[in-house]
């Protein structure tokens, strides 16, 4: 067996994090903008007012730019599993490959096909047929996210699979269990609705820009109103669904929850404070200072007032017997692969549940071989492995808090914006309009930090409690990894620059530069004459 090079593992992790975070800058807008376009077009079909068609076409153009770059950055990631994470792909491919294949064959093809019809079908389809196409694009893009998140949920809570000692892989047992796992459900709804928030703030921010400059006022007022209402409900939903996901993590991934909360020792209900700010020290395994709100943590996590939450020190102690048992499992598995004797298989089966912890001990075994651990060194290896079960607490703790604080800010901003819009007092409140405009990138930032919380919190595992990350990477050379990492960083930075250039360009041009021009004065004059909604563009 090739020795594991920690530098290559770290570079592989860094490369995947980089590409995933770049890709995830585009994804939330795609998820949300499609349903916002569907909402605008629905109003157009219902009322017949052309301004809503102009809205759907203009915001659709911004969606198109984002969609194209999202696809370009997403495709490379699928190949990365094979190139940089070949051990993971071999071990978990049965579980992971199925939803990924369905994503490509069903959701992505559906989305891509109907995107073409959506952009080029305005004059070729009836209003109703075009509306159906827009809804199908929205459904397709969100179904695409669904399958990816089902695959990701399998990594976090690998339900519906068993380890086969003959093939040395996790084998698929139940498709239904995978799709309907509570983690997949919670992840999908939370992520999808976070995309709605991102899209709503983009539309609201660009509309605020027009209102501040006194341009496209009727267009901007309607876009702002729809986005504010879309955003406020979505923000309430994303916070609620985040709680669902947190509860799921509490049930299935206690180390992630303990790291998120900076909880080194088991909590003392009901007083235990929810830490607002702290400086977690991973090396010393303590927080340097804490500012917290008492009586909040226990009900927040457990949904009651009396259940203690296990701290990281206690979780480490609880892992010790599992590491010892896992070492027995790995040793028995190694023997079984050589002998194929029933006795070795039975020995493995007796400790199978702790196999992942045995893999985790590999790093501290002589020559990375747990079968070579002398009896007198076993406890030392177990003690060395114990801290490895924890994720990076500083990163997990702060990425979660940044996400949460931003979500609370969005709630306040959307609530005030929706109120002012409903009262027709937007233009008097330039401060709010400026806040909306400058807040456009923040939901993207929040989703990025949410993603970091989920992925960093799952460490040290790629498949939770089953396959450690350091055993999942391919055995590339360091120079290969540095070269490909630099290439990805350069290419994706160009993509981001292109996206920002095009977004700014088309946002500044505004809807009047669009194929179907609309003038505020013409619209106002028309309404003044007819006193009713003006006619459809068709």
């Amino acid at each position, binding site marked *: 067996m090739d020795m594991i090079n920690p530098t290559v593992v770290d570079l592989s992790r860094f490369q995947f994090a980089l590409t995933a975070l770049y890709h995830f800058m585009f994804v939330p807008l795609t998820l949300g903008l499609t*349903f*916002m376009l*569907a*909402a*605008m077009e*629905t*109003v157009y079909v*219902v*009322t017949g*007012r052309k301004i*809503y068609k102009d809205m759907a076409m203009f915001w659709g153009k911004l969606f198109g730019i984002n969609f194209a770059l999202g696809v370009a950055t997403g495709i490379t990631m699928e190949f990365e599993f094979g190139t940089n994470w070949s051990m993971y792909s071999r071990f978990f491919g049965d579980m992971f490959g199925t939803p990924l294949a369905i994503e490509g064959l069903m959701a992505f093809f559906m989305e891509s096909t109907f995107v073409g019809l959506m952009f080029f079908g305005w004059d070729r389809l009836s209003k109703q047929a075009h509306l159906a196409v827009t809804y199908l694009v929205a459904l397709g893009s969100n179904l695409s996210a669904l399958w990816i998140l089902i695959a990701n949920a399998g990594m976090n809570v690998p339900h519906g699979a068993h380890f086969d000692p003959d093939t040395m892989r996790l084998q698929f047992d139940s498709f*239904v269990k995978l*799709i*309907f796992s*509570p983690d997949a*459900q*919670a992840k*999908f*709804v939370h992520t*999808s*609705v976070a995309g*709605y928030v991102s899209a709503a703030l983009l539309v609201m921010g660009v509309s605020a820009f027009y*209102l501040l400059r006194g341009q496209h*006022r*009727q267009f*901007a*007022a*309607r876009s*702002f*109103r*729809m*986005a*504010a*209402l*879309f955003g406020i*409900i*979505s923000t309430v*939903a994303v916070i609620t*669904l985040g709680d*669902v996901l947190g509860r799921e993590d509490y049930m299935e991934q206690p180390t992630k929850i303990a790291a998120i909360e900076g909880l080194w020792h088991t909590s003392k209900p009901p007083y235990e404070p929810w830490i607002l700010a702290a400086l977690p020290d991973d090396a010393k395994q303590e927080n340097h200072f804490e500012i917290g709100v008492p009586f909040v943590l226990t009900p927040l996590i457990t949904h009651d007032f009396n259940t203690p939450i296990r701290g990281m020190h206690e979780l480490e102690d609880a892992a010790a017997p599992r590491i010892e048992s896992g070492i027995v499992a790995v040793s028995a598995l190694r023997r079984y692969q050589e002998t194929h004797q029933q006795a070795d298989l039975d020995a493995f089966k007796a400790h199978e549940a702790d196999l992942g912890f045995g893999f985790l001990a590999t790093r501290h075994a002589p020559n990375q071989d747990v079968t070579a651990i002398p009896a007198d060194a076993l406890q030392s290896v177990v003690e060395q492995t114990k801290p490895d079960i924890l994720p990076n607490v500083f990163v997990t703790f702060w990425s979660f808090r940044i996400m949460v604080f931003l979500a609370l800010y969005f709630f306040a901003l959307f609530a005030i914006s*929706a109120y002012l*819009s*409903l009262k*027709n*007092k*937007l*233009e*008097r409140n330039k401060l709010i309009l400026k806040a909306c405009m400058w807040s456009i990138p923040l939901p993207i930032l929040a989703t990025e930090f949410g993603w970091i919380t989920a992925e960093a919190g799952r460490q040290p595992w790629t498949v939770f409690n089953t396959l450690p990350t350091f055993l999942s990477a391919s055995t590339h050379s360091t120079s290969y990894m540095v070269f490909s990492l630099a290439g990805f960083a350069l290419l994706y930075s160009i993509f981001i620059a292109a996206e920002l250039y095009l977004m700014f360009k088309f946002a500044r041009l505004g809807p009047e530069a669009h194929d179907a021009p609309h003038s505020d*004065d013409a619209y*106002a*004059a028309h*309404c*003044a004459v007819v*006193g*009713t*909604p003006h006619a459809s563009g068709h």
Partner: protein
Amino acid sequence: MQLLRLAGLAAALVVSLLFAVFVGDQGPWYFAWVIGTIMIILISGAGAILLDAQQDGKIGSSSDQEV
């Protein structure tokens, strides 16, 4: 034609009910997402129509009204 349309709507209703029963039971959060997304779209659309109605009530007096 009317009968065909009625049959189509009835089929859609049956599919929706089956979807609601199955997904509501097996995947309650998926079901919540479907219902929630529809609600978000309808409320944001209603907000826009309300703005039209607010402006239609005032537009005769001024074309430069505040938004």
